């Protein structure tokens, strides 16, 4: 599972990151599943200047926030999506339309 940091919201006055917009993806053959969302942070945490943050640090924040259980849940959700893509449980179409 790959974590992608899409965007970060920060307080203009001090640069504290308040929201991290993330996407997790997983590819299996021709199919790619994804899930996205946000994690919010308050200024109670350890502050590091915005322009000194690295992608890996922010990913570390997310993993810490999610914990092993949360990460496993996301993996399971992506696996379920991939399974549904490979074998769609519901099909759409009209028998008389090409």
């Amino acid at each position, binding site marked *: 599972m790959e974590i992608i940091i*899409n*965007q970060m*919201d920060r307080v203009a006055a001090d640069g504290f990151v308040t929201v991290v*917009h*993330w996407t997790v*993806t997983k590819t299996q053959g021709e199919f*790619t*599943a*994804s*899930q*996205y*969302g*946000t994690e919010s942070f308050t200024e109670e945490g350890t502050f590091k200047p915005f322009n000194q943050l690295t992608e890996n640090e922010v990913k570390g924040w997310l993993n810490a926030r999610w914990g092993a259980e949360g990460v496993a*849940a996301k993996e399971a*959700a992506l696996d*379920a*999506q991939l399974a549904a893509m490979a074998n769609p449980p519901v099909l759409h179409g009209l028998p008389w339309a090409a």
Partner: protein
Amino acid sequence: MAKTKISEFSATPGNNTDIDGINLAEGCAPSGINDAIRELMAQLKDFQAGTAGDSFNGPVGTTTAAAGAFTTLSASSTVSGAGFSTYLASPPAIGGTTAAAGSFTTLTTSSTVTLSGGTANGVAYLNGSKVLTTGSALTFDGTNFGIGTNTLTYTLNVAAPSARSTFTSTAGTSSVWQNHVNTGGNFYIGIENSAGTTFGTTAYASVLWSTGATPFVFATSGSEQMRLTSTGLGIGTSSPAYKLDVLSTAFTIGRFSRSGAGGSAAIDLVEGSGGYVRLACDGGTNNFSIRPAGTTTATFDSSGNLGLGVTPSAWWSSTKAMQIGAGGVIAGRTDTAARNYFASNAYLNATPAWTYIATNYATRYEQNDGQHQWYTAPSGTAGNAISFTQAMTLDATGRLLVGVTSGSYALDVGDVSGGNMFRFTRSGVEVSSFISAGLPYFGTTSNTDLVLMTNSTGRARITSGGYFKASNNGTYLGSTGTYHELTASGADADYIVNITTPVATAANCYGARVYYSGAAPNGTGNVFLSCQDNAATRATIRSNGGIANYQANNVDLSDARTKKEINPAASMWSKIGALEIVTYKYNDQTHDDVNLGVIAQQVETVEPVWVDADGFGETPEDGIPFKTVYTKDIYFAAIKALQEAMKRIEELERRLAAAGI
């Protein structure tokens, strides 16, 4: 009468002048007041105890008892009254399952009331039979409330096979909403009122309303799918940067569909002033069209061809084309990178064959395997095949071919209609070329000179009158003179005109000729050749054949180094004497003067070598060339004869002198 009990008191204060005889009238003695109060307290005690005989006319006896915290009800005698007597006549069995009927308005207990039956946490209510009821259908544990459940996980828990809730405005026109509140703000779900003033929206609008600066998040399968923020609606993204921001890992990100077969579908892009562009999928064709203000200006067909102002024709599958307006075409091939088309009123149909788009002329330009090719065609009917003619080609080597499709010249003009090959025109003057009656013509049809140029200088010209003039420096004796002219200013040249016959066969060597083809001036004027300098005429060859010059200047080559077999000449005495010197006139003589001379045929009888029979000019009809005579030989023969005569004279003079004559 002294007032001895409360029933004797008056409702009018002024009438209560005593109590049990103690004076309370206006101006009574103050010492009687304490006795009056004591008497009043005694009468009140008697009233409470019921010993005074007064009846109680308050709430007792009505249907509503005054509120009170009675713990004991007692009576000194029988209690009676309508309804009450019935109850008393058949009092309920305390501790039974059914309480007696009553009109209780207040039930007061001095401590906690505990019911031994019912459901723990069950909220008591009167069921349809007005039986006080508890159960798991309605529960409350002091913190959480349950409807249809006694699993009280949250503040309000509702459970049912089809769980539903309804909030109804009984006024009908008022707003109805639920409010969800925390420190992030208020979130309302409801319906706007009839004036649209509750949320400031529209009458009866269905409303999801958040007062916090927080997003609406929509999720399925435990995953966020859509988010509405103050910036916009994000689908597949939690941070929309636009009013609608869609992100997807799938190739097809979105779809707008129109139901029903054959119907076109469109979306509009509207600018701030209301102008719009409509993007449409045309019904039944899979074509994509762009329609500013609703009018189609561009159409992409399902084959990938583009029409600007027109629907593209049905092009050959190996071609991608852009059609512009009624007949403009730009097309490229998909099977080769080296062939493209620019055409007017022509398209390649499925065959493929070039076909008229409309009824009109068609032209075509191709870039084909390194060549530029221009084609023309006559006017034809829409839908019919076009017969193109390759009119011009710029080949891969840079040759421009006009009227031919191959050639070996930088400019190669072939068989064009009418034989006209090329023409260049400026300010009414033109230079052109054409072929007529098998003869190539180059020059100008303008009434002007035609100039040949080298090194940026005109070196020769043919005047408008047809006179050829050549000058190395472009300066002529008379550039407009009605004569041909050769002018040279070279300082190191021995001659300015050199007529050369390089052939090796002597019989084929010829020189120049001056030919009066139309007339025979045959005189001293109209000279064939005039030799002049800037001072005088030095020599002429006259039209009668005579040579006129400064006589003393005539010379013959006589150097011994140029001669061999030099021998004294034989006697010319008899030959000179045999010559018949005659007078005569030429047949075509233009004057009447008598000429003096010899006749070749007579000279030939005297000395054949003095006559030349090779001819002079054209041979007469009898086939015998004209004969000429070597006059210089006759001249020297005459000198020889004169020398012989001189000797004879000198001998005769010697003899005469010897004879003394």
